[in-house]
């Protein structure tokens, strides 16, 4: 039988809720995004002013499309977490908060899905 109180059993073991996981995910995505963002900026600079055939051919290359895939999905998670932090800080009415949180999730993953679709189309060349 455990005689210690329930509080004593959990004290010092961290939060029982999702805050720490959210923080960790934010850190993880931000670290992953650093090289991916550098890649994206380099790619856009290299492709600026090029004609369509070059653009389509380059974006369809696996070594270009794959990092862009990573960027798009890691970025979607980062976007969702970052914007939800802003919503939690500024939106307090229950209705607006629910709408904003839902809209944020839709927006983050819809942009990622659209980008992934474009990258797939460019890679497979349909």
């Amino acid at each position, binding site marked *: 039988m455990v005689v210690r109180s329930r509080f004593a059993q959990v004290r010092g073991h961290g939060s029982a809720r999702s805050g720490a996981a959210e923080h960790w995910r934010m*850190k993880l995505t*931000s*670290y992953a*995004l*650093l090289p991916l*963002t550098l890649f*994206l*900026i380099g790619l856009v*600079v*290299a492709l*600026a*002013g*090029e004609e*369509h*055939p070059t*653009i*389509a051919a380059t*974006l369809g290359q696996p070594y270009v499309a794959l990092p*862009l895939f990573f960027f798009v999905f890691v*970025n979607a998670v980062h*976007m969702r977490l*970052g*914007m939800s932090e*802003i919503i939690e800080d500024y939106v307090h009415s229950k209705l607006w908060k629910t709408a904003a949180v839902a809209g944020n999730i839709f927006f983050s993953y819809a*942009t990622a899905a*659209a*980008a992934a*679709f*474009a*990258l797939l*189309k*460019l890679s497979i060349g349909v």
Partner: protein
Amino acid sequence: MADARFARRLPERPLSPHLQIYRFTWTMAMSIAHRVSGAAAYFAAPLLVLWLLAAAQGPEAYATLSGIYGSWFGIIVLIGVSWAVIHHSIGGVRHMVWDATIGMDRRSRTLWAQGTLAGSVLLTALVWLAVLIWS
């Protein structure tokens, strides 16, 4: 806010401080700039998606998009977006350094905050210089 009915009965008490009360510090300014640039990049994400979609769609769609992105208005927006992304990225590096408890003293943290702004302006200028030379 105190209700008007009680205004005469309540003594004047200090309200909780807000932005206009605090003395300007660089770390405060860059904290705000980090959030603003992050939100700007968030709403600019469709610009990247549209670029990819237009490239996937075909030459006509891509030519239309290039016309819009390459117009003076498009270039101004893209300069702003690139600045936001670069600023937010350097801000991320700053947070990474602070997470490692490096540069936490007053002088270093101000330097890091100032460096974020200076670095972001410099890097954005370099990126657009590269675009100018490349294309």
